């Protein structure tokens, strides 16, 4: 069966520090991968998605970047965090881009 792992669960980082959040999927090949951010009491904002290794589409210009170094690994990064980067980050995968998504358990990032 397919599983998705996302870590860490919580993270407190100072302003200006770097960020690396990792997401891996098991039990499937060539998944579509997504990074969403959820602000408190808000809906989900799509940040990046990837339909294959090395293929990254950015939905919102911002302080973050994403990479897909392996088929089932998706990494969200920042060189210098801003206060506004705080939020709940969710990784997800799907077979097709319009199919049902399976989400990871999320990372609560607080930038102080």
């Amino acid at each position, binding site marked *: 069966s397919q599983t998705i792992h996302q870590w860490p669960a919580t993270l407190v980082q100072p302003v200006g520090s770097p960020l690396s959040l990792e997401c891996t999927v098991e039990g499937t090949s060539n998944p579509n991968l997504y990074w*969403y951010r959820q602000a408190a009491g808000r*809906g*989900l904002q*799509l940040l990046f*998605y990837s339909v294959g290794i090395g293929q990254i589409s950015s939905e919102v210009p911002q302080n973050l970047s994403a990479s897909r170094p392996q088929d089932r690994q998706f990494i969200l990064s920042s060189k210098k965090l801003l206060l506004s980067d705080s939020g709940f980050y*969710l990784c*997800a995968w799907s077979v097709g881009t319009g*199919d049902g*998504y399976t989400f990871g358990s999320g990372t609560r990032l607080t930038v102080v």
Partner: protein
Amino acid sequence: SQQGEEDPQALSIQEGENATMNCSYKTSINNLQWYRQNSGRGLVHLILIRSNEREKHSGRLRVTLDTSKKSSSLLITASRAADTASYFCATARTSGYSTLTFGKGTMLLVSP
């Protein structure tokens, strides 16, 4: 941009009652999906209804889709305290790489 908008924003009911949540969207869709999110957790896919379907059932869930009105409803029958969560609708557009666009969600509280 926000595609789906749920209504109401919050709903409080007693156990055993039915809960109805509505979702409106703006553009043509390939399918519409409903997700559930427990506090501080990732989203869980509940049900997917395609644009050529009008109604779908899954256990205590009933979803309807009216493409002429660009709206959908999620009915949870005989609610339980464990149904307490936020519920989101998400739409998959008909063109290109159709990533999901999520609404802001309805927060459902079911009291024992």
